[in-house]
């Protein structure tokens, strides 16, 4: 068996791929958090619950309506995005004049309500969601076998992240969005409906979380706690990257996923805490985050 740094090659590559997958979810979730934070100035604590809702909507579509994975990729983000818009209109829009901490507390409360409701309805144990037949099997890359679905998740996540980045940095819609982030009053004066833009931005950020949830459904079991476990690590990712830069949050997400995967190979005891340790080091050396503005 081939050895790399004293570790069997299949183990190393397997954990690298797993790390890339986790990194893909970190990137998609921290990207959504960053987009929402940019315009709404709130940290969306409900993000983990909305990720979980995406996975659950996919599972419900399949179980109750017989609608499969491919349509779920489209429908679940739309459905969850609409619930996000309702939440923004009903609750979050009342908080814009208050201290940002209230937004955190409100979205934390909403996350508890959503996760508690799903636990009441579906219990704490996971629901299985099968990999669609088109994406089963594995590719032989010569040095390792890559399950097709895992490769698919990494590719889709990369594509979605890049598309979001292009939309925000290179289109006129994105320019308006960035302008509203800098100075909403002035943008409003130019005749752009800023409250509607804020509402749709929140919906889009939430839809991104739901899309990540659908992608995650066949990998992790679909259960009410799946988002809560993720979101705290994503918060650490956001602190490391700093929320100033879209590209920064994508890169930080993928890199930290890979670092976590490598830690699982070389020092498994630290694998669940390594992201937090990196966060502490970054805070010591660059308190604003690697890509943040002070």
């Amino acid at each position, binding site marked *: 068996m081939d050895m790399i740094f004293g570790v069997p090659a299949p183990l190393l590559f397997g954990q690298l791929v797993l790390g890339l997958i986790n990194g893909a979810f970190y990137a998609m979730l921290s990207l959504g958090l960053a987009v929402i934070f940019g315009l709404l100035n709130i940290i969306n604590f409900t993000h983990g619950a909305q990720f979980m809702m995406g996975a659950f909507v996919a599972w419900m579509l399949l179980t109750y309506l017989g609608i499969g994975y491919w349509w779920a990729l489209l429908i679940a983000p739309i459905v969850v995005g609409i619930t996000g818009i309702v939440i923004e209109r009903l609750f979050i829009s009342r908080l814009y004049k208050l201290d940002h901490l209230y937004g955190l*507390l*409100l979205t*934390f409360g*909403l996350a508890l*309500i959503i996760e*508690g409701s799903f636990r*009441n309805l579906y219990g704490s144990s996971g629901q299985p969601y099968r990999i669609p037949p088109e994406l089963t099997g594995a590719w032989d890359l010569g040095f390792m076998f890559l399950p097709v679905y895992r490769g698919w998740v990494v590719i889709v996540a990369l594509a979605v992240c890049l598309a979001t980045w292009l939309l925000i940095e290179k289109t006129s819609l994105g320019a308006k969005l960035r302008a509203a982030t800098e100075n909403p009053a002035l943008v409003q004066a130019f005749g752009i409906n800023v409250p509607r833009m804020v509402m749709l931005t929140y919906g889009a950020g939430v839809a991104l979380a739901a899309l990540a949830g659908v992608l995650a459904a066949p990998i992790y079991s679909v259960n009410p706690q799946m988002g*809560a476990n993720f979101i705290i690590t994503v918060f650490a990712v956001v602190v490391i990257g700093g929320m100033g830069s879209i590209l920064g949050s994508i890169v930080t997400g993928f890199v930290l996923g890979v670092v976590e995967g490598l830690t699982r190979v070389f020092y498994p005891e630290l694998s*669940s805490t390594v992201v937090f340790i990196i966060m*502490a080091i970054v805070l010591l050396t660059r308190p604003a985050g690697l890509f943040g503005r002070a």
Partner: protein
Amino acid sequence: MAGPVLDLGAAQEGKPGPFGFSQAQFALFSAMAVFFLAAPFLGLYEVFLAKILCFALFASAFNLLIGYVGLLSFGHAAYFGMGSYVAGHAAKLWGLPPELAILCGGAVGLALGLPFGWLAIRRSGIYFAMITLALAQMVFFFALQAPFTGGEDGIQAIPRGVLFGVVDLTADRNVYFFALGVFLAGFLLVHRIVHSPFGQVLKAIRENEPRAISLGYRTDDYKLMAFALSATLSGIAGGTKAIVFGIATLTDVHWSMSGEVVLMTLLGGLGTVFGPVAGAAIIVTMQNYLAGFGAWVTIVQGAIFVVCVLAFRAGVIGEIGKALKIRL
């Protein structure tokens, strides 16, 4: 920089009374002390009351940070939970008496609070909340893996021991009065800190940090000291809980515990003297009644968060104080 979290209306300090309380506050404090002294004799269950007292101390310690410095920590479960583990370990394996065991809990709160606070005060506002949450999650994973915490089982059958070598705490009534003593000492200490010159500087930092800096105060030192005090008292509260219930588990160190203490303080009233106690009493009572209804506890807690934030930001005690135009 975000503005102050608090909106207590046009409340007046009121006439000064004993112990640095205003007269209204002293009246309420006396009523609270008399109630807790008399409660076991009114047929209320002692262990339940002791649970309220542990959480009331925890929430008061948390309030020291959010209410008087304006820093929202979302990771106080780390200090409470590790305080609970270490006090339980000290009482069970080292055979320490309860008073020393809970001091060990306080010491571990301090030992964690100093480095975590030192890291977290580098940022403010929501970053501070996210950093404290992430650091507490690290402690949770540590507790999950470290052998001395007993993993999923926790530390069970912690002996209540003999207080000062004299009072056997095995009886529920005795351990209740022990918890009451710890709570009252902690509560008065928080009150003393808040009304000391040190506490006045903390409030100045909360209201306008740049101005406090321009007056020559090293605000980071003050914030760190407040953080360490809050973490220490949280550790003592966790240790007391371990002694009363004889058990220390992962629940105490989980992020949902951090959320619960935020909820108690918010519901009672951020930055009020009695709010955390009222909030702890309401939430613990509610958990007690809803214990058999599965995830409904979580849903109701979430709903209370939403209602408090949207319509009830001063909390129960804060609203009463606003209506009466006094600080409670």
